[in-house]
């Protein structure tokens, strides 16, 4: 049995009368690639931020790599986590080379005695995202998609046991999106990394991930590969007005007949 990387038990966040997250329980093992889908305001980013140790939960328990996440263990545990958050500041200001940005992801980057970065690790991470030709380029001069790939390299350079991604494909075209999901799939399979990714578009991720958690305050359904997501789960998440459209039969949540791909 693979090692448990993230174990969330009865997690709660927000005011008791109107919680943002309520009774969330998950167990994700090494090598597992999980997608989290849900409508706006469902608490997807909040859940990722809580697992990343950025926001303390109001109730429940989180184990990372078999160790309880507390304010004391946080620093040590987070060194094994890669994190790619939702983009807010689209226009970077600081003069930095691509390799400098990736170096920031190294576990000991900020240590005062750290002189000279691990260039081999930086090049490896950039090669993973196909940006190895641009190591010396000014980060500000890259396109939005290129910047996002560099940010992903920054998250990967520490060779994390757990990679948390909050809508990583937002700045990417469909080809780059597919390449990103394939890369994440490969890293999970080959290195045993566990990835948890928030995405809006289940159709884009469903053929790559091992499971999909449908979240809207609570986890309404956790579908494994090949499993159908019932219509009532979609309606519970998005309301009665959604259109359920038939889609590729080989992905999670999709079986021939009335299956979901787009929700409006």
């Amino acid at each position, binding site marked *: 049995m693979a090692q448990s990387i993230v174990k969330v038990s009865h997690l709660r966040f927000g005011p008791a009368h109107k919680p943002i997250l309520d009774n969330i329980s998950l167990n994700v093992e090494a090598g597992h690639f999980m997608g989290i889908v849900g409508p706006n305001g469902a608490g997807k980013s909040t859940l990722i931020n809580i697992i*990343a*140790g*950025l926001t303390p939960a109001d109730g429940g328990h989180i184990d990372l790599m078999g160790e309880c996440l507390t304010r004391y263990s*946080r*620093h*040590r*545990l*987070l*060194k094994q*986590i890669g*994190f*790619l*958050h939702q983009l807010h*500041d689209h226009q*970077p*200001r*600081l*003069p*930095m*080379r691509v390799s*400098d*940005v990736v170096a*920031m*992801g190294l*576990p000991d*980057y*900020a*240590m*005062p005695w*750290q002189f000279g970065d691990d260039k081999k690790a930086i090049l490896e991470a950039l090669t993973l995202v196909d940006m190895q030709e641009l190591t010396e380029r*000014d980060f500000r001069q890259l396109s939005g998609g290129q910047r996002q790939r560099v*940010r992903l390299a*920054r*998250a990967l350079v520490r060779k994390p046991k757990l990679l*948390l991604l909050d809508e990583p494909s937002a700045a990417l075209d469909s080809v780059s999106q597919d390449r990103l999901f394939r890369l994440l799939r490969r890293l999970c399979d080959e290195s045993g990394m566990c990835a948890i990714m928030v995405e809006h578009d289940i159709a884009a991720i469903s053929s790559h991930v091992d499971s999909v958690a449908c979240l809207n305050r609570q986890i309404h359904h956790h579908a494994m590969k090949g499993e159908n997501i019932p219509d009532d789960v979609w309606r519970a998440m998005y309301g009665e007005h959604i259109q359920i459209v038939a889609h590729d039969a080989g992905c999670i949540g999709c079986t021939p007949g009335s299956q979901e791909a787009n929700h409006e």
Partner: protein
Amino acid sequence: MIELLTSFLASSVMSASLLPALLIAVVTASMSVMVMAHRLSFLTVGVSHASLAGLGIAVSLSLPLLPVATIFSVAIALLLALMPKRQGISEDAGTGILFAGSMALGIVLISTATTTRVDLFGLLFGNILTVSADEKLWLYLLASLILIIMLLASRAWWSIAFDAVTAEASGLPVNALRLLLYGLVGLTVILCVKLAGIVLTAGLLVLPAACAWLWGRSLAHLWMLSVAFSIIGTLAGLIWSYAYEWPSGASVVLALCGLFVISWAVHGIRAAIATQK
């Protein structure tokens, strides 16, 4: 020109003030990189003006000026770091409130002080030429402390400036490091008061990195350029001050402004040529 330089270096007043001025140039240039990266330009204006209250308290109670002003400036800077989070007040509004209130308190205290030893013009606009032995010692201590902390924390601060959320998710104590940075800005402000005075201090803490920003390609590169611009500006300003008997602080800030205009214009022309090609 050579005659002017020879005479400048031979002057006992100038040679005595040269080392402190260059030390201030190196420290402020280093700090200005972080001030620009963390968008703290207005904070430096606020803290420098607020330090007048610290000086006013020192004058009223006949306490040593620089130590009291140092404690006051660091306290104000830390208060500015904490106030927005605690009370929901935006940082610029908080800075404006403390800036105006402290400056008003400082003016009242100094104007009502019975002592006549206060050089108000020197406090407001700086005069490195009158630096005393005690002040030099205080300046060297502060400068060493600031440079050591800068060396230890610069990569963490740079990482926070680039992406604070990811820095925190990497395990960096972002809030504690921010407080340290704000406190250090307070210390640096006091360091500058002797050279540029309360009114012009922000110039020393913004202009060197602003000149370098257009050319820097990495933290180390930016830092070196910022120090180079700062040293050139300080030397040019002191020589002007000596040649035309201008106030030293204003001359240095004017020289740095001139360097910024040149740097900005050359960068613009270069970018225009590159676009045409």
